[in-house]
């Protein structure tokens, strides 16, 4: 459907395994836009603050690519509760699952950028407001590699 298409009618990278060592499914958000300098200005930041939009542009630019925009990203491990009246919240902390992972299978040749969320004002990275590192690995094509759940 239109709000998620890239090339009409194709999905780019379906989640082929969404699992973790504790076998609790990791939360992934599909609704919230990446923060940008405008978002930090709304939050009262004066001057520059690192943000996912700029990080994603920077990641692409390291490969010599200049995308026309940063589309609303897939937010891995981000917990955005939804209520039936449509209200969203950031109040809940992320569900911490140390070692939790998501495995994505590329269904076409892709360039993917990751940004470890630098948000330290709102509690989306936990109440301590301390962004943490995340890691990724590119696996050989093997349908079940690493899947435990």
């Amino acid at each position, binding site marked *: 459907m239109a709000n998620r298409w890239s090339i009409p009618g194709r999905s780019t990278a379906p989640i082929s395994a969404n699992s973790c060592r504790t076998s609790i499914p990791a939360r992934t958000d599909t609704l919230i*836009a990446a923060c940008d300098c405008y978002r930090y200005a709304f939050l009262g930041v004066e001057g520059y603050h690192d943000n996912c939009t700029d990080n994603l542009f920077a990641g692409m630019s390291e490969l010599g690519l200049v995308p026309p925009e940063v589309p609303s990203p897939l937010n891995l491990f981000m917990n955005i509760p939804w209520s039936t009246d449509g209200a969203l919240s950031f109040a809940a902390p992320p569900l911490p699952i140390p070692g939790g992972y998501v495995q994505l299978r590329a269904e076409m040749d892709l360039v993917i950028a990751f940004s470890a969320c630098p948000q330290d004002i709102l509690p989306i990275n936990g109440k301590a407001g301390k962004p943490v590192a995340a890691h990724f690995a590119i696996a050989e094509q093997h349908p079940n590699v690493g899947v435990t759940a």
Partner: protein
Amino acid sequence: MTMAQTKQDISEANRRRYDELRAAGQELTPKALPEPTALDGAPIAPGAVISREQVPAGWYASVRLRRGEALRVVDDSGCSSVSLIGWREEETSERINCADTAKVQWSAAISKGRVLLSDMGRVVLSLIEDTGGAHDLLVGGSTPASTREAFGASTRNSQENFLSAAAKIGLSLRDIPPCVTFFAPVSLDGKGRFLWNSSRKRPGDFVDLRAEMNLVVVLSNCSHPLDPARLPTSEPITLIRHRASPPSKDDPCRTTSPEIVRAFEFTDRLFA
């Protein structure tokens, strides 16, 4: 002082400032959203009408709006859904952004009193009148694939309508943002599945969208992909471009939250 300490200092200062701003914001009485407009409410004075047109089922219209003008979109039959995208006229890289609209207002439900934001932290359109309050920010409009699934054959659809409208002003696929769809009562259940609430559609439902910057908007009168009626929309919609009253100091759309007040400050600077 190490770099890490400096970064932490900046982070803590930002946080203190945010907490102060939030506390200041919370001292204000939280503003409830206004009641929906009655179906026979908010008549437009004849002298305020700039233009009026009907958009046949399956077709689209491009409308240029000056800041302060409003567009009334009327679902005359109660069985249409209208998908909308829009760009700032002077700089089309600035455009409507559904994800920021939901994020900044803490809600994916838009209704009277809410605004549609751009990708540059400014307000594009305000919902100054709205009878139904049942619209879709999440799913998007119809596509060739969704119409094949619904009707067994590819029919006119919003995605191709947007491409045609964009091409006429020199824009292309990459200029087309996710759309908002009016008169599309989509909600979610506890498992994240989409629901369609047919009972929230009535003949004559309308919205008034006030332009907060000079705009080109495109409206596509195509069935929403989740509409279970599975009928190619057979009815036209009505668009009425009119001069809105200038917003008062306590205009509901401009004052819902500190973040929205700031979004209007950033918007007003364009015209200062």
